[in-house]
């Protein structure tokens, strides 16, 4: 019979409708899958009791190996054994700095690099999907049913292309992605920080080959990533290498063959792990040459040979704090992630830096997957509504239309919700008493290329000269993704607002298309914006000059009037054309022609204001 798990009160699922959901930590070096069983987040092991699945995929002519089997092929079949595929996700060949030093046959494809293997050309998405498939099978065997979905974690700094690639890989593996979650956020969730008090937290993630530091801010149950920093080429492997070099130096070895290098490397790693629990580690090995190595490494020596590595983690940490505009005292808690944070020297350095004990009672290798599982359990509907936690970002920027059909972005894409942003706008014409507010969504510069969400009007603006009114427009997106826009004239307090649901009806494909369009049309958009801006500016100038001519025609000198009129006509003509440079030129010409007229107007108005007043009165 089926094996049952304990549900939350009133949350029992109907038979055969268990909402099985998992969290997946798709890591650079290792991947894990976790779930919530009877209210407890646990990592799921494979048949051999191993929780970590090495993120290594080996393609054979007649099949694929993933994990431990593939790891062993790394040395014998490097071209077809792909390690750290995460570094290639959503990346083009030019983005991969050390491609020349890798054993793979890269194929430069537009969008994302591909790798030619014995089983054909494979994209990073397909390779990642192989890892995800294994995790999915493990999960379904462990949970006894099909998954409704998964939360997959990604580094906080992943851009849209990398996130999309991760989603695509999941889809290819037959996994429904409930949500992508930032790795540091997942770690914080695993520690239950989301249920606690608000504040700033640091997540210190030192893995096998990468180091990431993230500064998170928790407010109203939502984590916002304030800043990230790190070193993509710093990790536990570097500590192993330092020990390896120390062994060579102490034993006076050089010119080793591959086999001996690997032997000593694995001894170095083992010694590092021993030093986590003990004061000393014995290193004894017999090389293929018959030479023997017999050394003892103590924590003191280890600390001194790795001192520079430890300080290499603190520099980005300092930077991340500075970017977030925070000081060490403002950090309420520090979460440790990644197996390398087990090293006492790291624990000590981090504790000293932040002047507090870091959180480390959860397994640092598993903490991200556990957090993802907790989030997946909530999203799959296994917890009651009031436990709902939402960590989401805005897929496309939100903004409004300004003069000339241009878009002014107010809330930028990828902002975490809930979010509120305000910006001040002003009137374009003298005596303007109403303003039409057009809310749009998209990355393009012109309103016509974006998606229109809503239009509303703000009336009752007191008549003022153009540019004097201050209209504050506030965009607010609540935790459910609901957008409300409010416009308020600051001097009178008149206001008007509208509520829309921005992501409604937009599929992932549409969002991707809109993003792609914004990339391919980047240059056109820039020119179009420049033209529109010049046109708006030109129109504004003509209006101002005409108003001045009407008011102070008597200040004109002979011939000046015709000259100005001719320049106005020229500017009108240029505005009709589509070269922004011509508009700017005509605009400058008109400005130039009216310069002395404007100076005389200024003098006249100053005279008028000063006439009949005593110096003493002015001084007051």
């Amino acid at each position, binding site marked *: *019979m*089926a*094996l*049952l*798990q*304990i*549900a*939350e*009160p*009133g*949350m*029992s699922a*109907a*038979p*055969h409708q268990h909402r099985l959901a998992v969290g997946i930590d798709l890591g650079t070096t290792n991947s894990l899958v976790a779930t919530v*069983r*009877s*209210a*407890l987040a646990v990592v*799921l*092991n*494979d*048949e051999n009791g191993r929780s970590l699945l090495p993120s290594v995929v080996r393609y054979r002519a007649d099949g694929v190996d993933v994990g431990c089997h593939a790891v062993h092929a790394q040395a014998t079949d490097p071209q077809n054994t792909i390690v750290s595929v995460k570094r290639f996700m959503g990346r083009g060949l030019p983005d991969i700095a050390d491609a020349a030093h890798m054993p793979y046959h890269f194929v430069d494809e537009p969008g994302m690099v591909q790798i030619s293997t014995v089983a054909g050309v494979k994209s990073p998405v397909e390779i990642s999907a192989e890892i995800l498939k294994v995790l999915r099978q*493990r999960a379904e*065997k*462990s*949970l*006894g049913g099909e998954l409704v979905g998964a939360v997959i974690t990604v580094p906080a700094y992943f851009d849209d292309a990398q996130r999309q690639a991760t989603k695509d890989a999941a889809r290819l593996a037959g996994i429904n992605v409930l949500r992508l979650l930032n790795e540091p956020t997942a770690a914080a969730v695993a520690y239950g920080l989301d249920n606690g008090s608000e504040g700033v937290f640091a997540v210190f993630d030192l893995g096998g080959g990468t180091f990431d530091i993230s500064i998170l801010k928790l407010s109203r149950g939502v984590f916002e990533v304030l800043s990230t920093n790190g070193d993509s080429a710093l990790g536990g492997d570097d500590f192993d290498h330092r020990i390896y070099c120390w062994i060579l130096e102490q034993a006076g070895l050089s010119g080793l063959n591959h086999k001996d290098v690997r032997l000593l490397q694995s001894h170095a790693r083992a010694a590092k792990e021993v030093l986590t629990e003990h004061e000393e580690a014995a290193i004894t090995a017999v090389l293929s040459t018959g030479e023997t190595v017999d050394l003892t490494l103590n924590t003191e020596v280890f600390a001194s040979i790795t001192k520079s590595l430890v300080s290499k983690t603190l520099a980005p940490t300092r930077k991340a704090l500075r970017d977030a505009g925070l000081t060490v005292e403002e950090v309420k808690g520090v979460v440790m992630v990644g197996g390398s944070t087990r090293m006492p020297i790291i624990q000590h350095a981090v504790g000293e830096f932040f002047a507090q004990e870091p959180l480390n009672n959860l397994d640092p290798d598993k903490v991200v997957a556990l957090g993802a599982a907790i989030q997946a359990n909530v999203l799959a509907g296994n917890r009651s509504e009031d436990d709902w936690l939402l960590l989401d970002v805005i897929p496309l920027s939100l903004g409004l239309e300004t003069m000339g059909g241009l878009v002014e972005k107010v809330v930028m894409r990828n902002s975490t919700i809930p979010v509120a942003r305000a910006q001040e706008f002003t009137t374009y014409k003298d005596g303007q008493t109403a303003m039409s507010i057009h809310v749009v969504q998209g990355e393009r510069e012109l309103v016509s290329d974006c998606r229109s969400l809503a239009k509303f009007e703000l009336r009752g603006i007191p008549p003022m000269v153009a540019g004097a009114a201050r209209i504050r427009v506030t965009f607010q997106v609540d935790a459910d993704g609901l957008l409300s826009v409010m416009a308020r004239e600051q001097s009178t307090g008149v206001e008007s607002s509208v509520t829309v649901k921005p992501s409604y009806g937009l599929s992932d494909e549409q969002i991707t298309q809109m993003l792609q369009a914004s990339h391919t049309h980047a240059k056109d958009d820039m020119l179009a914006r420049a033209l529109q801006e010049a046109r708006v500016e030109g129109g504004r100038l003509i209006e101002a000059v005409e108003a001045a001519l009407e008011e102070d025609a008597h200040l004109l000198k002979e011939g000046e009037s015709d000259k100005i009129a001719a320049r106005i006509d020229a500017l009108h003509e240029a505005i009709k054309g589509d070269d922004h440079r011509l508009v700017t030129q005509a605009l400058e010409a008109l400005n130039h022609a009216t310069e002395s007229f404007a100076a005389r107007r200024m003098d006249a108005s100053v005279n008028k204001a000063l006439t009949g007043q005593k110096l003493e009165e002015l001084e007051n």
Partner: protein
Amino acid sequence: MGITMTEQAAKHVSNFLTKRGKGVGLRLGVRTSGCSGMAYTIEFADEIGADDLQFDSHGVKVLIDAKSLPYLDGTELDYTREGLNEGFKFNNPNVKNACGCGESFNV
């Protein structure tokens, strides 16, 4: 009669309760649904209801509402492992036939 738990099951329940941080015990029940008529429910209990029957098994409180008892009387709850999967299992003497997976049953 009543409801009992194996030592293994009780150990897991009390572990889950501790980790969860709240709850007075375990609530078992049946409800009508599923392919063979009745289905088991197994939930954490945060409070004891007025018409709840209580059984104590290896130090863990098991609650069951009076209406569900006839269907479950004499049941022993077990915790087992099948391959990678693990979880609770009802050994219910009242069951006449169950659906293939055993998740729903008939008395």
